[in-house]
C-alpha cells in the first residue's frame, strides 16, 4: 500500500484550517488547541516523510512523488515530490509550526480564529511550495503564501503594520508576476516530444538547451522574484519593516521559512534551469551577497530596536547563504542549505525571545532594558545560547554552516574567490560584535529601571517553545551528518548539472592527481564521499563497482 505521505503532509494544515473555521467564534482556547494539534500532526507527517525518504546517493532524485493531472488541457499537473534539500526545509517548516502557535498563545487575543486559520493556511502553502514539481503548482503555492502572511502582519502587527503589510505584498508580488511571464515563456519555448507541459522534471531536461539570450532574461525574471524574497541587497527594504511590524509569531515564520523560499528558488529553479545564465550572473550574485553580509551587519550596529536588529541580521545571514550558493561547489552549496536551516532555527528563536521580552515590557528598544539577567536568568541563558549559534561558535549549528560556506567560497572558481570569502569573513566578526553588544545592553550591567526588577523568567509554555530550538542548535552543531547526508546528494546533482554546461567554472578545482593513477588506485574521497573531478556518471559506476567487489 502506497500512502501519499507528501500530499497528506501538505494538506493536513489546510484541513485544520477548515476545522477551526467551523468552531464557534468565541472559543479562543479551542482555536488555539486545534491549531496546535494540527501543527503537531503535520510534524508527525513530516517525520513520516523523512523516514520514507531514501538518502542514498543513487536513490531517485525526486522521491515520494505523486503526479496526477490537474488541468490536463494546459499540461498542468498536481505533481509533488522532494529531493534532500526540500526534505530538510520541510522538516524545518514542520518543526517551527507548533512553536509558532505556542508563541502566539498569549500575545494574540483578538480575532484568534482568523489568526490560527492564517497560520495553518500559510503552513500548507509553504509545504506545498517546497514540494511542488510543476511550475504552475509552485506558483500557486508561492502566491498563496502571500495572503496569510500579509494578513498576519496587517491585522495583528504593531503601529505601522498596514504600511509594512502593503509594502511586503507589493514587493513580493512585483517579483513573482515577472516570474509568471517567465514560466509562460518556458512553457512556450521548452517543448519536448511529449508536447507542452509545466512539469518541472521535463522542463529541467529541456530548459538548459535554450539559447543564452533567452536564458539570461528568464534567469533575471526568476532571480528577481527570488532575490526579493531572500532578500538580497538592494531589494531588502521591505524586510525590516515587515519584521518589525509583524507579531512575534509572524516574524518567526517569515524569518524561519519564508526567506528560505527565495534561496530554495535559486537552488531548485533559477540555477539548474538556466545554467549558462547562472554562470554568467554568478559574479553579480556573489557580489550582492557579500555586500548584503557587510551592509546588514553594519545596519545592525546602528539599531536601537531589537527586532529591527534581528531583521537586519537576517539580511546579513541570508547574504551568507547566497554566497554559499553562488560558489557552486559542493561545500558551498551544502553549507548554504545548512545555513538556511540554522538561520531558521536560531533567528526563529531570537524572534521568539524578543517577543517574550516585548510581552513583558511592551517595548523593543534596547535602552529600556539592561541588567535583566539577574531577574530572568533562564531567559538570559537561552538568549546567550542562541546568540552563540547566531555568531557561529564551534559546537553550535552556525559554525558548521558558516565554515562550509567560507571554505566552499574560497575554493570556488569564480574570479577572485578568496576575496569574496575574506569579505564574508568580516561579516562573521561584525556578527559577533552586534549580537554580543545586544546581549550586553539588554542583560548585563546594573538593573536600574524599577519596572525591570520584577521581570518574569520563563514560564512552562515558554520553556516548551525554546527547549526544542535550543536542542536543535546543539544537535545540529555537534552531529550535522544526518542532515548533510540528505542535502549532499541533491547538491551533488546540482553541481553535476551546472558542471555539464560549465565544467571549467563550476565545482572545486581538481587536486593534482593523475587520472590514470586514480583508476588504478582506490578512489580518494572528499569529506562528502565523492571525488570531484571526474564525470559523475563514471564516478557513480565506479562506486557501484566498488560496493559489489570490495
Amino acid at each position, binding site marked *: 500500500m502506497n500512502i501519499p505521505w507528501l500530499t497528506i503532509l501538505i494538506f493536513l494544515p489546510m484541513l485544520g484550517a477548515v476545522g477551526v473555521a467551523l468552531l464557534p467564534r468565541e472559543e479562543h482556547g479551542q482555536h488555539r488547541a486545534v491549531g496546535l494539534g494540527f501543527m503537531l500532526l503535520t510534524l508527525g507527517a513530516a517525520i513520516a516523510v523523512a523516514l520514507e525518504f531514501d538518502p542514498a546517493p543513487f536513490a531517485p532524485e525526486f522521491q515520494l512523488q505523486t503526479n496526477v493531472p490537474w488541468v*490536463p*488541457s494546459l499540461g498542468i499537473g498536481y505533481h509533488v515530490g522532494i529531493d534532500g534539500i526540500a526534505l530538510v526545509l520541510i522538516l524545518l517548516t514542520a518543526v517551527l509550526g507548533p512553536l509558532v502557535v505556542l508563541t502566539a498563545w498569549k500575545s494574540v487575543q483578538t*480575532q484568534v480564529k482568523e489568526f490560527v486559520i492564517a497560520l495553518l493556511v500559510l503552513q500548507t502553502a509553504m509545504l506545498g511550495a517546497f514540494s511542488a514539481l510543476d511550475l504552475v503548482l509552485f506558483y500557486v503555492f508561492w502566491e498563496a503564501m502571500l495572503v496569510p502572511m500579509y494578513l498576519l502582519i496587517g491585522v495583528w502587527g504593531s503601529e505601522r503594520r498596514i504600511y509594512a503589510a502593503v509594502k511586503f505584498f507589493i514587493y513580493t508580488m*512585483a517579483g513573482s*508576476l515577472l516570474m*509568471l*511571464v517567465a514560466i509562460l515563456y518556458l512553457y512556450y519555448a521548452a517543448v519536448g516530444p511529449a508536447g507542452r507541459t509545466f512539469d518541472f522534471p521535463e522542463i529541467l531536461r529541456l530548459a538548459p538547451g535554450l539559447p543564452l539570450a533567452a536564458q539570461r532574461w528568464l534567469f533575471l525574471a526568476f532571480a528577481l522574484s527570488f532575490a526579493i524574497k531572500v532578500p538580497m541587497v538592494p531589494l531588502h527594504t521591505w524586510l525590516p519593516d515587515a519584521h518589525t511590524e509583524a507579531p512575534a509569531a509572524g516574524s518567526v515564520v517569515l524569518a524561519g521559512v519564508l526567506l528560505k523560499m527565495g534561496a530554495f528558488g535559486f537552488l531548485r529553479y533559477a540555477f539548474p534551469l538556466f545554467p549558462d545564465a547562472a554562470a554568467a550572473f554568478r559574479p553579480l550574485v556573489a557580489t550582492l551577497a557579500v555586500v548584503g553580509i557587510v551592509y546588514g551587519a553594519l545596519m545592525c550596529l546602528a539599531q536601537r530596536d531589537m527586532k529591527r536588529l534581528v531583521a537586519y541580521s537576517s539580511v546579513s545571514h541570508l547574504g551568507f547563504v547566497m554566497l554559499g550558493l553562488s560558489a557552486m561547489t559542493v561545500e558551498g552549496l551544502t553549507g548554504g542549505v545548512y545555513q538556511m536551516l540554522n538561520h531558521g532555527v536560531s533567528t526563529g528563536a531570537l524572534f521568539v525571545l524578543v517577543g517574550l521580552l516585548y510581552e513583558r515590557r511592551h517595548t523593543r528598544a534596547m535602552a529600556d532594558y539592561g541588567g535583566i539577567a539577574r531577574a530572568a536568568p533562564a531567559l538570559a541563558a537561552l538568549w546567550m545560547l542562541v546568540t552563540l549559534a547566531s555568531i557561529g561558535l564551534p559546537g553550535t549549528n552556525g559554525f558548521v554552516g558558516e565554515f562550509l560556506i567560507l571554505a566552499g567560497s574560497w575554493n570556488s572558481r569564480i574570479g577572485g574567490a578568496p576575496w569574496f570569502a575574506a569579505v564574508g569573513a568580516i561579516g562573521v566578526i561584525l556578527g559577533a560584535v552586534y549580537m554580543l553588544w545586544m546581549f550586553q545592553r539588554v542583560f548585563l550591567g546594573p538593573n536600574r529601571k524599577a519596572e525591570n526588577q520584577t521581570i518574569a523568567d520563563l514560564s512552562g509554555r515558554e520553556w516548551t517553545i525554546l527547549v526544542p530550538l535550543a536542542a536543535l542548535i546543539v544537535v545540529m552543531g555537534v552531529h550535522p551528518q544526518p542532515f548533510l547526508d540528505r542535502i549532499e546528494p541533491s547538491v551533488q546533482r546540482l553541481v553535476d548539472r551546472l558542471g555539464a554546461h560549465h565544467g571549467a567554472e563550476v565545482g572545486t578545482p581538481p587536486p593534482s592527481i593523475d587520472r590514470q593513477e586514480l583508476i588504478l588506485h582506490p578512489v580518494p574521497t572528499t569529506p562528502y564521499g565523492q571525488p570531484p573531478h571526474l564525470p559523475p556518471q563514471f564516478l557513480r559506476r565506479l562506486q557501484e563497482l566498488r560496493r559489489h567487489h570490495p
Partner: protein
Amino acid sequence: MIHFQAADVAALAPEILLSAGAIVLMVTEVFLRGERRGYQALLTAAFAAAAFEAFAAQSGNPPRAIFGGFAVQDGFATFAGAVVCAGLFATALIGAGFLRPRAAERGEFYALALLAAVGMCLLVRGADLLFVFVALELMSVSTYALVAYLRVGTRPSEASFKYFILGAFSSALFLYGTALCFGATGRTSLSGIAAAGGGRLLLAGLGLILAGLAFKVAAVPFHMWTPDVYEGAPTPVTAFMAVGVKAAAFAVLVRILLSAFGARPFAAAWQPLLEALAVLTMFGGNLLALGQRSVKRMLAYSSVAHAGYLLVAVASTARTGRAAAAAVRGEAVTGLLFSLAAYTATTAGAFAALAAFERLSGSEPQPWDLDRFAGLAKRRPWAAAATAMLMLSLAGIPPSAGFVGKLLVFRAAVDAGLVPLAILGVIASLIGLYYYLRVVVVMYMEPAPAGAPVSPPSWPTDLTLVATAAIVLLIGIGPGPLTAAAAAATGLLGG
C-alpha cells in the same frame, strides 16, 4: 427573403425563454393588486436559469447558420450566451436585495433586464453586421432605460443621459462602419465580407466598427463615460453592464474580427491597433482606479482595466507572423472565453458586495465610500471573507478564477509572440493589486467608524456574494471543467 425553419426556432430557445419571461413580468405587473413583488426577482432568476440550461443543451452541437445566414448557432455563441445568462441570474438576485429597501421593486426593472439579455444573446450569435446592429440596439436601449431606473436625484439622470448620448454616438459609428463595409464589398454578412475582401474603404469600415465596439467594452480612450455611468446607475444595473454588456460586446468583437477580417492583411492591420488599445486600457484603468475612494468608481475603473486584459486575448487571436497556427488562435479564444466567465463571476460578486454594504440613501454624496467597508471582518466575517476572495480574484492571485483567467490570457499572448504585451500586462496588474488590497486592508485592518450605520442584510444579495466567492475559489482550485468547456466552445467557433 428569410425562411424560418423549425430548427431555427429551436436554436433560439434561450432567447425565446428570456423574452417570455419579460412578457410574463410586464403582464403580471399590470394586474398586480398588492405590493408583494418578491416573486419577480425569483421569476427572473428562474428564466435566466432556464435560458442557461437551454444554452447548455445546445453545447456540442456542430456550428450551423440560422435565419438564412444572419445568425449562427455555434459553441462560441453558446458559451458566451451562457455567461450572459449567469450574469443575468446574479443581477436578478442583487436587484431583489437592492430594490426592496428602496421601495423600487417593479416588474419593469426585471423585464428590461431580460430584454437586454435577449439583445446580448442575439448579439453573440450575429453573423451579419445588420443583425449585429439590431441586437446591439436592443441591448443598448434596454440598458439606457435601466440606468435611469431610479429617477431620484441628479446622478441617475446625468448617468443615463451621458450613456444615452455616447451610446447613440457609438451605435452611429458602428452603423457608419457597416455602411462603409457594404460600400466596399456589397455585403453585410461576415463571411461575405471575408470572401469579397477589399482595400482602404473596408479598412476604414473596420476602424469605425472597432471604435463603436470599443465604446461598448469601455476601452481607453473610449472609456470616458464609464465611471460616471457606472456610479450613477443602480448597483445591480452597474453589475449587469459590467458583466453582460461587456461579455456580449467582446464576443461579437472577436467574431467580427475573426470571421470577417481574419485574413492576414486585415489581421496585420488590427493587431497593432488592439495591442495599443489593450496597453492603454490596462494602464489607464488601473492608474485611474488608484486614486478612488468610492468603491463603486474603483470597480468601474477596475472593469476598464479588465477590458484591457481581455483585449490582450483578442489581440492574440490575430493570424499574423508567428501566430499563424490555428492552435495559437484557439488558445487565445479559449483564454478569452474562460476569462469572460471568470470575470463575470468575480465582478458580479464584487457588485453584490457593494450592494450589500452601500448606504441606503443613494442621493447623498459618496454612499460607496471605502469607510463603508471598515471593520467588516468583525461585524460580518463571512461576507468580509467572501469580498476579500473576490478582490483577490480581481487582482489575479491564486487560487482563484481570476488567476487562471490571467494565466490563460498571458499564455495566449506569449504564444502569439506578444511577450512585451504580456509583460506590460503583468506590470499593469501589479498596479491594480494596490487598490484591490486596499479594500481588504480596510475590511480587516481598520476599525469601523463609530456610529456607522449598518446596512440591513438581505439574503439574496448575501447569497450572491457568498456563492460567487465560492464559485471563484472552486474554479481557481479546479479549473479543468471550465477550461475544457471553453476549449470545446472554441473548437466550434463557426465561420
